[in-house]
């Protein structure tokens, strides 16, 4: 005979335990994960459809926009606490924390809000400006800094939609910068044509550098992450080498810095000379529209998305996966190339080995925050541009180090990479509460049955 079974309440269930048990059972189901209910047509019969190259990364890159917004909020809150922790007033009030906790809390609040207000004033609107132009100057600065972030971010996002992790925006920006700058300072061409050639050279530079990665992957099966990281190094050291050759060095200088680009080769400043904002931002908007159209309305984008979501099915449907890989990396490189052009022909007007700054790497974060959608990436680029632009003002006004912005950026990535964490913090996570309740109700059921 079997062992004495655990006592449980008999057939007549009490009304109040029944719904609780239902919740418990549902919780067991979600928590149990591995077991799929076979009576659920959607999950059991279709099962998990094989996703792209890596399901976890795919989820992170294409998860819901809500998590993005919440991740930014949460990162700002924690960033605020960090700011407060270094504040003198907070330190002072903490010595008599237990005597007058209100002082301490007020000091924390003040420290954080002062810094964020300064950040806002440095990136969007400065009420102390004398003229409207001065008041809105910070916003144009945000847009200027956002420009290379947006275009490079689009490159990362587009490649990701085709299932490729393009870590190579940095190298692509550098190669584009090299070509665009050379055309810009070495050639003497008429107005209009010169800038056009700078633009084309930059796009080609990025596209070739990205396309090579696609070609190598398609032909040899090498992994694009390794390839792009290595290509970043090649591009950076190639740039440093060039800047020490006469062809790229400024005449009479020994510093690694190129001549200033010809006036005919730089982007016009679209809001007049007093602002740095240049044509590159308009091109970034155009690029966003183009990428949206490409992904959602073109056969090429259909191929990219199909290859990204299920390469095996795409291949079976006659889509040339190799071709799509090469093409998407070339287009992604071209988009990053736009960032390189924006840097040399827009913001900097010279070529140095810091031409790409960290835009190529920040672009990955931007694409991540933008969920790999064109307009999401655009918005994320603006946000990061604002952080960068405002950080300087924040340091000047409140003494809060610029690095806090990097911390906030990093926190954003962390939270986006861990959606359950964000949902838990904001109480949106159904999984957190119910297992506890399940255990409780189970206990209740057994004890109730014994009684």
């Amino acid at each position: 005979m079997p062992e004495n079974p655990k006592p449980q309440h008999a057939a007549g269930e009490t009304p109040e335990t029944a719904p609780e048990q239902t919740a418990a059972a549902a919780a067991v189901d979600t928590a149990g994960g591995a077991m799929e209910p076979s009576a659920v047509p959607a999950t059991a019969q279709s099962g998990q459809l094989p996703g792209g190259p890596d399901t976890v990364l795919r989820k992170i890159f294409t998860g819901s926009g809500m998590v993005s917004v919440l991740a930014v909020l949460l990162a700002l809150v924690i960033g605020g606490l960090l700011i407060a922790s270094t504040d003198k007033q907070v330190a002072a009030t903490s010595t008599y924390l237990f005597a007058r906790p209100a002082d301490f809390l007020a000091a924390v609040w003040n420290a954080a809000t002062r810094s964020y207000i300064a950040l806002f004033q440095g990136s969007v609107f400065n009420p102390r400006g004398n003229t409207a132009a001065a008041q809105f100057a910070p916003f144009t600065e945000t847009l200027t800094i956002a420009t290379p972030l947006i275009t490079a971010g689009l490159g990362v996002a587009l490649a990701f939609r085709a299932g490729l992790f393009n870590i190579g925006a940095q190298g692509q920006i550098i190669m584009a910068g090299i070509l665009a700058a050379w055309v810009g300072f070495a050639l003497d061409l008429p107005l209009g044509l010169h800038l056009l050639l700078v633009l084309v050279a930059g796009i080609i530079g990025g596209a070739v550098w990205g396309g090579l990665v696609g070609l190598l992957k398609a032909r040899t099966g090498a992994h694009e992450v390794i390839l792009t990281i290595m290509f970043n190094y090649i591009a950076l050291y190639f740039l440093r080498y060039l800047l020490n050759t006469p062809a790229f060095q400024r005449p009479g200088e020994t510093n690694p810095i190129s001549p200033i680009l010809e006036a005919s080769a730089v982007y016009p400043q679209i809001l007049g000379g007093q602002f740095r904002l240049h044509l590159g931002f308009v091109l970034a908007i155009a690029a966003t529209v183009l990428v949206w159209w490409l992904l959602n309305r073109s056969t090429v984008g259909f191929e990219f998305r199909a290859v990204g979501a299920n390469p095996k099915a795409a291949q079976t449907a006659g889509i040339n996966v190799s071709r799509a890989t090469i093409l998407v990396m070339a287009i992604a490189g071209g988009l990053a190339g736009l960032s390189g052009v924006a840097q040399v022909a827009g913001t900097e007007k010279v070529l140095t080995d810091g031409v790409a700054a960290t835009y190529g790497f920040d672009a990955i974060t931007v694409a991540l925050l933008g969920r790999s959608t064109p307009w999401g990436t655009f918005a994320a680029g603006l946000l990061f541009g604002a952080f960068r632009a405002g950080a300087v003002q924040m340091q000047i006004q409140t003494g809060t180090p610029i690095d806090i912005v990097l911390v906030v950026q990093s926190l954003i990535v962390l939270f986006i990479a861990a959606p359950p964490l964000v949902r838990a913090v904001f109480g949106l996570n159904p999984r957190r509460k119910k297992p506890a309740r399940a255990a409780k109700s189970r206990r209740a059921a057994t004890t109730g049955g014994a009684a």
Partner: protein
Amino acid sequence: MVRVLKLELRGITKRFGTLIANDHIDVVVESGQIHCLLGENGAGKSTLMNVLYGLYEPSEGEILVDDKPVSFRGPGDAMAAGIGMVHQHFMLVPVFTVAENVALGAEPTKAAGFLNLDETRRRIREISDQYGFDVDPDALVEDLPVGVQQRVEIIKALVRNASVLILDEPTAVLTPQETDELLDIMRQLKAGGTSIVFISHKLREVKAVSDTITVIRRGKVVGTADPAASTTELASMMVGRAVSLTLDKEPATPQETTFEVRDLTVIAPNGQHMVDGLSFDIARGEILAVAGVQGNGQTELTEAILGLQDRVSGSVTLDGKELLGRSVKDVLGAGVGFVPEDRKVDGLVGTFSVAENLVLDLYDKPPYAKGISMSPAKIMENAKARIGEFDVRTPSAAAAAGTLSGGNQQKVVMARELSRPLRLFIASQPTRGVDVGSIEFLHRRIVAERDQGTPVMIVSTELDEVMELADRIAVLYKGKLVGIVPAGTGRDVLGLMMAGIAPGEHTASPSTGTQPAATADTEGGDHA
């Protein structure tokens, strides 16, 4: 040793959110009986068994063992109560020996914690001898045929003194011969006092071994049936409406031969000849069914024709044009309709909408695209038409294909491939994991395509399906053609061919003689 155990599920209800997978199900499994749960895919059979096995907690209702209520917190509790389960997908470690697998989870130890497998080996031999399992305790599981692996799973349960054995779709992975052997084993286990819960949707098998049949439809028990009932009656109960199991198709009227395969050889990266010198023809207006146990070169054969295989030699011609060496796009463009064997892997992009999946290989052709600009309106229009024509049950054309049920996903693939004029139609496992109602529909469409004068090649591991659809049957074994036989060849002959024995070689054996004109014995008369 075998304990008498009466098992009762009373009013079991299992909800997942708003979905009710099991709705007040009552089942009584008497000791020493084979109790069959019959139902379509997704009817809730497996959910019910997972409740019984302690993997799910029921939302309502209770489980009674020998009339005493029990609550299982997990498989461990169920096992302790004498319930064992053999899952559809085996839970074995391939690189372990049989004995190690059987011991796993309840390893017997000697002094100082050393593993004592001798005891396990002894028990395996004992059980193996008792039921004629013919299992060597020291064989590596990965070296064993699927049928034997399944016996290892059964031994695992028996070693733990299971007196109720749950078999979840056990015959899905077996050859007809292995299936018959399993049915014999089930009868022996029953004779030894073990009760068996047999989950299946294959009517022939259910009728062959069951003592009691409980039919489940959409999470509810719709009734019990007598094993003596006809398959048509059972199928109607299962589906909820009258179904005709025998396809009333006209005899084929083959016209000229337009599809020829000559000496086709496909070599795997490891040098193995996956397809080895195949030659066959298909005429217009004819269905050639390729039968064989899974993994005997069927996948490579169809992929080679489509252009998905690299190391291919020989010749494949359609309408006199060579297909080998051309891109998939070219082959599809030559008028080949292709339904891949695993819709989830090869046939659909799960995150794409139904509408997009319906043009997955037509997206760049007019009217769906002009140049590289696609027309969402035209794609939607096409989707609405196909969804109507094929009765695809989907919330909308914009729903992600991955959220549809298996049968509806298959209809999407089928609808896409049959929506253009074809010169050749190839379907691999056209109805795998598809409910009986949809099978009937899909089969009719395939026959309709044949009647329009298209050469049709069906690849199926389901013998019933092969016998149902085929005008001629080609049997593959280890990449080679065992033979091509006419439709109406007996199940036993085909079964032997699937084991590599060509027709004629076995005539010496009296028990397996050819049965003349044993057409479509879906009634399973042999087993009654």
